[in-house]
């Protein structure tokens, strides 16, 4: 089957997963809480209780509940946030771009750090660079990212004033007009290079920390993958043909070794979405993470659920892209 058919099939699977996500969120909102109305609006006055019950269908039989849930979602209605007093959907749209910017930037850094690290580890197996790289990788995965963020802020900002403090932009820089909601894009559209660069400056520390966290898994997979490929017969054939070593490594070894790594990159994106949720608060970035954590502390239930849903959807898309890229790189998957 060719790439297009594979992509189509994969999309179908994603739709199915979306449905499953909806089911889980349904279960968590309608079934799990002892008092669904109380979860949405704690200590609500009686008329509110009635209103919410009617709107969400809490008094109806189960399958009708599910239908009313779907109906609400189709209308983009996810209730109101207790904290911001705005529709949750509106909040989500406002905040999710920042999280994507952070997670994507972090993933790029993770790949840029992780793959070379893994390569060095594999090519210099069991020698000093390998050991250092592995220790580095394991430390990376064991780190509470928000803690490291606090630490780095303490040292590099509060003490040394080397890096910018919390927030997206320095206080004296005005925000460009909102077009897409993505500050990186909006600043470019408005021609505000100063805002663009300043934001990137602010993104460096959190992205670096998250990138470190993600690089560990990528390095580990690259290393083991390369070690396995280096043992393969076709590498020996390539050398026996008289190919230059550089071509052997790049065209034959890497091309095969990086394939499993692509999968890890997908998982890493998910990890970094998680990490973003935790670090946004520390770095004052107005993304889904900050929104969701604040909501969690105050038990703003619907806001938390909405964020969860959205993040899961974003993650599913990321995995779709990863799977398609994987199929492109490895013909065996397409034809298998």
């Amino acid at each position, binding site marked *: 089957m060719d790439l297009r058919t594979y992509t189509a099939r994969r999309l179908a699977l994603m739709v199915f997963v979306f449905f499953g996500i909806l089911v889980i969120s349904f279960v968590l909102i309608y079934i799990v809480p002892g008092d669904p109305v109380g979860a949405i609006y704690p200590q609500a006055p009686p008329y509110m209780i009635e209103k919410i019950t009617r709107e969400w269908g809490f008094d109806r039989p189960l399958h009708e509940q599910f239908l009313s849930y779907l109906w609400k979602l189709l209308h983009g209605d996810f209730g109101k946030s207790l904290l911001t007093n705005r529709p949750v959907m509106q909040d989500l749209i406002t905040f999710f771009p920042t999280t994507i910017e952070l997670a994507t930037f972090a993933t790029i850094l993770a790949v840029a750090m992780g793959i070379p690290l893994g390569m060095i580890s594999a090519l210099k197996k069991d020698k000093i660079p390998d050991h250092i790289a592995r220790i580095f990788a394991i430390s990376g995965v064991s780190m509470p990212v928000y803690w490291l963020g606090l630490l780095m802020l303490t040292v590099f900002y509060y003490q040394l004033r080397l890096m910018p403090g919390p927030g997206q932009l320095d206080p004296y820089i005005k925000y460009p007009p909102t077009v897409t909601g993505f500050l990186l894009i909006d600043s470019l559209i408005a021609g505000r290079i100063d805002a663009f660069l300043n934001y990137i400056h602010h993104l460096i520390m959190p992205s670096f920390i998250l990138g470190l966290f993600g690089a560990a898994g990528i390095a580990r997979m690259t290393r083991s993958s390369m070690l396995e490929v280096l043992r393969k*017969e076709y590498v020996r*054939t390539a050398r026996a043909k*008289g*190919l230059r*070593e550089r071509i052997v490594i790049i065209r034959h070894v890497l091309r095969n070794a990086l394939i499993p790594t692509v999968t890890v990159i997908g998982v890493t994106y998910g990890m970094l979405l998680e990490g973003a949720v935790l670090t946004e608060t520390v770095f004052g970035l107005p993304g889904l993470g900050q929104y969701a954590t604040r909501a969690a502390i105050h038990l703003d239930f619907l806001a938390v659920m909405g964020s969860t849903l959205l993040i899961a959807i974003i993650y599913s898309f990321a995995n779709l892209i990863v799977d398609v890229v994987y199929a492109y790189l490895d*013909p065996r998957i397409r034809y298998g």
Partner: protein
Amino acid sequence: MKNKELLNVKNLITRFHTYRGVVKALEGVNLTVGRKEIVGLVGETGSGKSVTALSILRLIDPPGEIVDGEVIFDGRDLLKLSDEEMRRVRGKEISMIFQEPTLALNPVLTVGFQLQEAIETQNIPKEEAIKLAVDLLGRVGLPDPERIFKSYSHELSGGMAQRAMIAMALAMKPKLLIADEPTSSLDVTIEAQILELIEKPVEDIGVSVLYITHDLGVAAEICDKIAVMYTGDIVEFGDIFSIFEEPLHPYTKGLLNAVPKLGRDLYTIRGEVPDLVNPPSGCRFHPRCLQALDICSREKPQTVEVKKGHFVACHLYN
């Protein structure tokens, strides 16, 4: 005398440093291959046949090491060449094909591309290389060469893949082709066809072949000379008729006897293949040898030329 031989391996010693100890894979291998000659390297699994081939091409990776010896190819000692010089020998002057052809091909690149890159390495431009590749694929008997060019290794059968490998190996008309058990993983019917593909170029382009196998029957079919290998040593070497009609070394005799024949009990050489970390003292075959003498367990036998062109390493002939 020296330049008449295309390949002259002298006293090749290769060892592997493993966690169990030092594996003495080759302990002084001597081998010659003449021009337009097919020499068979015959021995059981673990005798060191593949290691010999890889040592000739200097494809031994750590923890292995070529410790000593000379590999004189066309007048030059390959072991003394620089890495870059050796790289240029590979593919162009000496080629190698391997046992499991589908595994020997990169699964994510097309078969044709891998053939093409072998040709391009010799500084032939891309369009010409592609044309030559397709042409070669046809000449090794692959139907619809253009389709094969675009195929991946997992889409080909073992036989087809091996044909492609042969095309790749002979593309630049090398002087020596080393074939490491090329038909061991293939059907017997396919085997015959592959053997033909290896035999023809000897006449057509004048390539010599070092044919490695554990199967005496196959060796008998195409080889001009045979080297019998046991646990890192060449125990007997001679032209095919001498070996088959007047085998000298007890091991050779055992091998010949072990070929199953109807109407006769199955004969096996008693004992087991020795551990290469702690090989037997003296002649490595002595524990299994039915004609062993006292001296066999003490001293390693020297190689002597018992008849013209027929060499043996055995105390019975010293």
